[in-house]
């Protein structure tokens, strides 16, 4: 077409049809509703007064303390144990690698009640492992170690997978260039691999943490009630998830809903903190929106 004549008005409508867009909104919206409605039900059933009283309840705070403490230890364990495994899987081709990968994926797919049962059988009073763990000061049955053990079992795979993918995504030529510029293997890891993988690893650690906090199945069997001992010097209590289950079992529906709301508010506050941290640059990669 040549440039002559009056310009046709610009069409701003998308070329795709409105029915197609409507279908996406209806289907996607239904799922969002499914996510939101149960949470709405919890808040509306509990009511502000019950939630406020749950916030003032010492037993609730003891459970919150234990849950945050144990999940924090689980995240530390993931940092120490899961990142090296992810790096190993990303960097080395070896026989039986697919078997190792399948084992890493196992905790994600098996029901967590089974995890608890399996761990329980392993450390059942009288078993060799029971005597051993008690001797070295890591008794697991009804202790914080039991909680941490279950949490690590069910949640560490997320960090392993995230680390594996993040390390794998690094262009090997960037590493070779840095080696050639004078960095030994360890220096190249610290200055290139780790910083470049950090964002993905942190995302994996957040999932590990979230999964730890929300765990209940395995804990119900291995450490229903947590007694002081080892690294935990607090009062006899349960994790927050078990506490909600306990109150629900006792028939106090409003109380269970109120504690659930406390749980949700704390999780939501932490989520917002991370998001806000990203925005204002507490984390090293915000400048790195430039990362590939």
């Amino acid at each position, binding site marked *: 077409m040549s440039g002559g004549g009056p310009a046709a008005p610009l069409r701003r409508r998308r070329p795709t049809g409105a029915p197609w867009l409507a279908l996406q909104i209806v289907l996607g919206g239904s799922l969002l509703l499914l996510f939101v409605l149960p949470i709405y039900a919890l808040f509306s059933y509990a009511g502000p007064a019950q939630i406020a009283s749950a916030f003032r309840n010492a037993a609730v705070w003891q459970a919150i303390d234990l849950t945050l403490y144990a999940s924090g230890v689980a995240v530390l364990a993931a940092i120490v144990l899961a990142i090296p495994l992810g790096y190993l899987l990303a960097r080395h081709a070896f026989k039986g690698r697919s078997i190792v990968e399948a084992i890493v994926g196992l905790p994600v797919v098996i029901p967590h009640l089974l995890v608890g049962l399996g761990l329980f059988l392993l450390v059942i009073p009288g078993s060799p492992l029971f005597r051993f763990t008690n001797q070295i000061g890591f008794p697991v049955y009804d202790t914080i170690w039991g909680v941490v053990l279950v949490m690590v079992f069910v949640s560490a795979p997320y960090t392993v997978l995230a680390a594996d993918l993040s390390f794998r995504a690094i*262009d090997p*030529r*960037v*590493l*070779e*260039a*840095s*080696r*050639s*510029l*004078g*960095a*030994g293997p360890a*220096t190249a890891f610290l*200055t*290139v691999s780790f*910083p*470049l993988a950090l964002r993905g690893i942190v995302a994996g650690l957040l999932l590990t943490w979230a999964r730890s906090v929300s765990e209940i199945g395995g804990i119900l069997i291995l450490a229903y009630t947590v007694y002081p001992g080892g690294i935990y010097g607090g009062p006899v209590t349960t994790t927050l998830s078990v506490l909600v289950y306990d109150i629900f079992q006792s028939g106090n529906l409003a109380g269970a809903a109120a504690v659930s709301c406390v749980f949700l508010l704390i999780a939501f506050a932490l989520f917002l903190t991370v998001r806000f941290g990203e925005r204002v640059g507490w984390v090293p*990669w915000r*400048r*790195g929106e*430039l*990362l*590939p």
Partner: protein
Amino acid sequence: MTHWSVEGLASRLDRFGLGPVDLALEPGRITAVLGASGSGKTTLLRTLAGFVPADRGRLVRDGVDVTDVPPERRGLGYVPQGLGLLPHRTVERNVTYPLEVRGRVDARATVRPLLERFGLTPLAHRYPARLSGGELERVALARALAAEPELVLWDEPWQGLDVEARHELGVVLEELRETEHIPVVLVTHDPTLAFSVADTFVVLRRGAVVFRGDAATLLHRPTDAFVARFVGFENVYDRPTLDAAPAGSLAAWLAARAGPGGIAFPRPIAAVDGSGPVWDGEVRATHPSPEGLSLTARAGPIAVALRRPAPWAPPAPSVGSRLRFVVPEETLHPLGASEGDP
């Protein structure tokens, strides 16, 4: 002034075998390693850089065998394909990187003249993702030089550059040759770019060196049909094609002058020019260029690439028209048989 020599170097990556390769890398000289995709160019550079272990042979730096020295202590700057810049570091921190890993505290002050020299000072605080292809190349080169290498290895320097950036890179390489007095090895699949900067040429084919020498030799004495085609000859004919030609044709005339691997010659002028038999062809295609007009004509069983040098006046000869030409005998290159060819 460091002298490097590559002596019978051979390596193996997966099922691909490279070498043996022999090279002398002299200060201030640029060596271009040419070859098609998969010919082993990158494997050669990575073997020299220490990322692919050598099975046989040696890499010698000033008389010292460095074949088994780890990459970080070889004293060479390897610029991989895609440049290998650190995406999480600014331009300045990319260039200071080699000094930082050596524990130098004055890294920023040390690289200031380098940034200035490569025009990177205004870009010092930008991240690689925000730079153009030409700017990225300059960062990679500045960073390699910050390590004070005694040999620079550069894989596909021209990759992804537009015409202007290619020209700029040529200027930078020329300057590098004059000021740094270090040997440079470039790897490229495009010989025309290499001709503009390199002094020595190595042609690799399926991991083996099939040519080593200067540009004049490479262009005037192509060793076999592969090298001839690779360096840009368009009139390359193998023996079976020529031998099948009817008597009295151009192909039969060429057959009488061909080597065991056939014959190659540059585009003859598309007019009766010079002495010798005059041939007749039918125009099949014409392509104008700044250097003149390129034509393809059919002469019996073979197609011949011809040229009409600038200035030529349009219109170009029409397709289907006939033209007459002479193939000067002194431009013919009899070719040896290619190794590994049937």
